[in-house]
């Protein structure tokens, strides 16, 4: 059953150009210089509306959700469940039952690996990941693979950082337990061909989990159109609060999966003799949830709805191109990850300079970038580098940020060589 996209989201009319003003932190200083924040792939900044929603919640609306008969608790529950509906709309899921609130992408992947994998995986089966994965989409699979006696296969990348998915034709079979790949690479920015991967897997009825941690900040995703079985993401990377994320899964699969964590909320009746479990989504939401977190995420989605998704995409593409053009004017510049299809993430090295040294100098100039392996050690190993300098941009960044970055890198080069 395909449900039509609600189309209220990311169809707003506000101009991206002024979005920056909504983020209080972007007007602060770091080391005495106006902050240039280029680490959104690690965690995005929050608009004032999200910050205020959390503030207001704790000042006027705080109460535990579900089952409270008093008005305050009902209000909190309504806000919480509205968050679930907003997430459903944002990713166009067929049903709210499929929206499970977790701590973040990492917990979501562990939930699937342990509940789905624990139940359905069999000895000798294969899990297919890719060379581009974040540790959070590697280690949970290693843990279950070890427990069950399974193999992990790794879709290779080329030197540009593009997945070589033809190999799937060879690898996919009835013996494949699951394919788990990211939508957008956090280390290189590559936008992966997840539609094609899903289509190929579909031929063998192999379920596919998409790690969308990096995708959500750049626009809504339509899980029905993608055709994935599981899609996971974190609130803190999409302008929402820390400590909240989402597992979306197809109802049919979620229904079949055993509960993972036990406790309050996820039960229907409990006795020492026999416990029955609550229905979806509560079956997978044991214990008091991150109520303020969900309310903040809900507000982040509402905030994104004020803009037009396509305008954001064009704006970010412009920023990316500008950044690449400017950076490559620096002698010795080595871009890492030059895939054709890329999000606004630029990983690079400068000949002869250690990323850490560059990061330190940039910090002193008020520029926040990430240096190191970006939780993708297998990728770095494959590329034969210890890490990169990564500038990751959101729609609140502008050309001035890029200019400051380029100036900073040039100065670092001058000081360090």
């Amino acid at each position, binding site marked *: 059953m395909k449900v039509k996209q609600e189309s209220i989201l990311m169809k707003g009319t506000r101009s991206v150009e002024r979005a920056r003003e909504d983020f209080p932190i972007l007007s602060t200083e770091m080391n005495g210089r106006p902050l240039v924040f280029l680490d959104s792939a690690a965690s995005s900044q929050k608009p004032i509306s999200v910050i205020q929603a959390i503030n207001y919640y704790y000042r006027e609306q705080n109460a535990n*959700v*579900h*089952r*409270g*008969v008093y*008005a305050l*608790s*009902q209000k909190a*529950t*309504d806000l919480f*469940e509205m968050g679930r509906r907003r997430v459903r709309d944002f990713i166009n899921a067929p049903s709210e039952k499929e929206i499970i609130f977790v701590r973040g992408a990492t917990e979501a992947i562990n939930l699937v690996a342990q509940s789905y994998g624990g139940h359905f995986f069999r000895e000798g089966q294969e899990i297919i990941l890719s060379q581009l994965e974040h540790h959070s989409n590697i280690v949970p699979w290693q843990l279950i693979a070890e427990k069950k006696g399974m193999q992990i296969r790794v879709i290779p990348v080329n030197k540009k950082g593009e997945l070589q998915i033809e190999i799937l034709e060879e690898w996919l079979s009835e013996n494949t337990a699951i394919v788990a790949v990211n939508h957008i690479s956090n280390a290189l920015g590559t936008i992966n061909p997840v539609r094609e991967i899903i289509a190929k897997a579909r031929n063998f009825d192999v379920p596919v989990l998409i790690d969308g941690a990096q995708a959500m900040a750049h626009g809504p995703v339509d899980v029905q159109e993608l055709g994935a079985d599981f899609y996971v993401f974190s609130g803190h990377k999409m302008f929402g609060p820390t400590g909240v994320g989402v597992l979306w899964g197809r109802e049919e699969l979620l229904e079949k999966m055993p509960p993972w964590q036990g406790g309050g909320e996820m039960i*229907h009746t409990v006795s020492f003799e026999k416990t029955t479990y609550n*229905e979806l989504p509560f079956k997978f939401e044991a214990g008091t949830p991150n109520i303020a977190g969900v309310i903040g995420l809900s507000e982040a989605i509402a905030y994104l709805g004020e803009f037009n998704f396509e305008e954001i995409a064009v704006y970010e593409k412009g920023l990316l191109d500008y950044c690449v053009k400017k950076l490559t004017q620096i002698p010795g510049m080595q871009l890492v990850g030059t895939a054709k299809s890329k999000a606004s993430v630029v990983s690079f090295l400068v000949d002869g300079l250690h990323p850490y040294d560059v990061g330190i100098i940039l910090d002193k100039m008020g520029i926040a970038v990430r240096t190191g392996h970006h939780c993708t050690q297998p990728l770095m190993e494959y590329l034969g580098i210890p890490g990169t300098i990564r500038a990751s941009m959101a729609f609140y960044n502008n050309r001035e940020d890029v200019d400051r970055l380029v100036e900073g890198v040039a100065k670092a080069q001058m000081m360090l060589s």
Partner: protein
Amino acid sequence: MKSINQIQEEIVDDFSLFDDWMQKYEYIIDLGKKLPLIEEDFKTDEYLIKGCQSKVWLKAYPEGDRVYFKADSDAVITKGIIALLISVLSGQKSEDIANADLYFIEKIGLMEHLSPTRSNGLNSMIRQMRYYGVGIQTKEKEV
């Protein structure tokens, strides 16, 4: 027999007389206490719609193109609201039951009782009544 909307209007009129929540709730409680809505025999698991906090029993009697309902609850406020719902829906044409817009609940300020949060079973009861309306005779999966 009056239509669903005629009955709803009457209820809305009745409630418009109340000045405050106390009068309103006293009226509902009275309704709840007065009506023996269901025979004790029917207070079995078969007719139970589980809410987390109060229990609701519901039995439907289809007759021709009409459906009659009896229902009960262990909580008296829930029971009073059930009495209102029964007065609106019982004996109506099944089609009308299935499609009824039960706006009176909001108008008389009882919407909060239908919040799934209240876990009083009312919500599930209405859903179940509609199911009977479209001729589904099995009990819905418990929530």
